[in-house]
């Protein structure tokens, strides 16, 4: 059974602006955010998985986005090194929580920016890693060294899709759905060369954070607003669970950003 880590949105809010979605002038509605998160929690809990919760911390509004806590493979947890100081305070809480549950915490060098599962997603035996806006390409090499796996670095070029998990979602059948224009030409070619059966998401649906989805076997939990994508996924045998995510999209996140797999993979092979 897959295990997931979520963080209740007790302290969630738009308190700073570190991506194009965030605007303090257009803050998130706390009650609605709470309701949307609870819907996500409930939906995931009903699927074939076990959900863990980490205690939220005051002053760390983005801790709710647990995908950026780090990357877990087997019993190894690689904590993130956040690019923005506003989020750096989350790191020790996540690392301690994982350590207390028996995970081996493997630290990256302090000068390597790496934002966890937000920028590192397995497809097949390759770990696809996004770089430029948040994670540095140098961190990919270090992660590949730690895990002993193939890391394919792809450059993100659209600041709205600043993390890999905002524009690329691998599927268990070896395919993926993605928004190609979020990548440079070389990144697009690298993904096309390594991932068969790609589903292109339209620009309109991509801006609804449709790629920011949690995939659990045949179930896909994604933000609402992507009817075309859902049709394509359902045609391939997936069950889609569309959820309202408006209050989290205001901060540049949705279903996947709110979820970290523990582990994302049991092993790299």
């Amino acid at each position, binding site marked *: 059974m897959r295990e997931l880590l979520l963080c209740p949105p007790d302290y969630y809010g738009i308190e700073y602006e570190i991506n194009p979605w965030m605007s303090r002038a257009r803050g998130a509605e706390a009650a609605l955010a709470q309701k949307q998160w609870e819907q996500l929690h409930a939906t995931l809990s009903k699927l074939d998985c076990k959900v863990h919760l980490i205690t939220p911390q005051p002053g760390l509004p983005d801790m709710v986005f647990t995908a950026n806590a780090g990357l877990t493979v087997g019993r190894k947890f690689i904590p993130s090194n956040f690019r923005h100081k506003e989020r750096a305070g989350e790191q020790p809480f996540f690392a301690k929580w994982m350590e207390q549950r028996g995970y081996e915490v493997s630290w990256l060098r302090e000068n390597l920016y790496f934002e966890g599962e937000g920028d590192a997603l397995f497809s097949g*035996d*390759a770990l696809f890693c996004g770089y*430029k806006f948040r994670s540095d*390409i*140098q961190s*990919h*090499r270090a992660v*590949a*060294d730690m895990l*002993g*796996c*193939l*890391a*394919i*670095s*792809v*450059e993100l070029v659209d600041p709205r899709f600043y993390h890999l998990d905002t524009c690329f979602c691998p599927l268990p059948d070896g395919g993926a759905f993605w928004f190609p224009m979020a990548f*440079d030409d*070389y*990144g697009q*070619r*690298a993904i096309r*060369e*390594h991932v068969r059966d790609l589903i292109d998401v339209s620009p309109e649906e991509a801006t609804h954070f449709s790629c920011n989805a949690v995939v659990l076997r045949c179930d896909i939990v994604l933000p609402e607003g992507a009817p075309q994508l859902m049709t394509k996924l359902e045609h391939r045998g997936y069950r889609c669970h569309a959820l309202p995510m408006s209050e989290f999209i205001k901060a540049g996140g949705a279903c996947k950003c709110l979820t970290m797999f523990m582990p994302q993979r049991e092993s*790299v092979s």
Partner: protein
Amino acid sequence: MFSETIELRGHIIDSLILPKVLDQILTHGANFKIGEIEIGKKRADQSFARIEVSAETAEALDELILRLRQHGAEVAKREDAQLASAPADGVFPRDFYVTTNQQTFVRFDGKEIEVQPAMMDSAIAVDRKRGAARAVKFFDVRKGDEIIVGHQGVRVVPVQRATSRTDVFQFINTIIDADEPKSAIIRELAGELQRVRRARGEIAVVVGPAIVRTGAGQHLVRLIESRFVDRLFAGNSFAAYDLERALFGTSLGISPDLAFARGGRENFVRAVNAIREVGGIAAAIKKKIVTSGIMHACVRHNVDIVLTGSIRDEGPIPGVTTDAIEAQKVMREKLTDVTHALLLATLHHSLAVASMLAPTVKTVCVDIDPSAVERAVEHQPLQSIGLVTDVEPFLRELTDYLSDSRVRD
């Protein structure tokens, strides 16, 4: 050119980072040379590439490196050059670095300094206080001078071949054999010389006695009169043959105007004596003893004449530098600002000059002996043209084109 060595590590092949970095270098107008590449064998193995990146300016290089760093490029660490003291006057330390004629930089105290001048078969002396590095010959070195040993911290930047056709040198870069047509090349050369003259470049002409003996002297005179020669390098014999012809109508006793004329060698010796008698070439011209010929044209048109001697010289004619070391110094000094060199029908003098030229000097070598042409152009492999031909028709055709206003330039 300014350059820096970068290193790429990781899954740079699967991620297409290597082609991306190479493409970015080229699209920013810079060049690259892959020094080392190791491709991972297994799927999870990482690869490595060391790439030398060079750009026209230091600023362009910095900006490019900054961009490449975003894609994981790391600037390779450079070590300082190693120094050792010269053990005695005129002796380099063992393992001293031997220079090429290419632009060379040395690194010491963490900074890179260009070696001046770019001079082949020399050592590099470093003056730490002045932050200077100079190429030195044996006669330049004094006991205790700090000389670079080994290759560490030394970087050579070869002249790059242009990717687009800008002139005949970059277009051809080869030797035209005796049985190949030459008119088109000579016409292009004429155009190039006209451009050089307008751009105030400095043209050096290195000449051998065959020019006088084949009757090509008159064409060289036209070249001088048309201001296409700034400096003339020759030996004692060349000057003597030319002066003999001016004084007696022969060169080494032979008149090029008479089909079967044979004369004695004595005219040659008498000509040398005549010049020695008046104290030199300029004096002979001033006194109207010499009223024609190449030397005459040079003096009349203020062309710098650099005459150096050899073992077989008669005389010598006053003004010929006979001390070999002194001659090297004079020639180097007179070649400093030369932009174009015509090496015409003289093997040893051409080789001596070619070995002293900066790599950027464009060179034309004309000789009837293919091996002479080959040896002379090898010093400037990307900036030279060799023509295997008698020098007389070459010079005749060149001067005809130069006087023809229709020559394209």
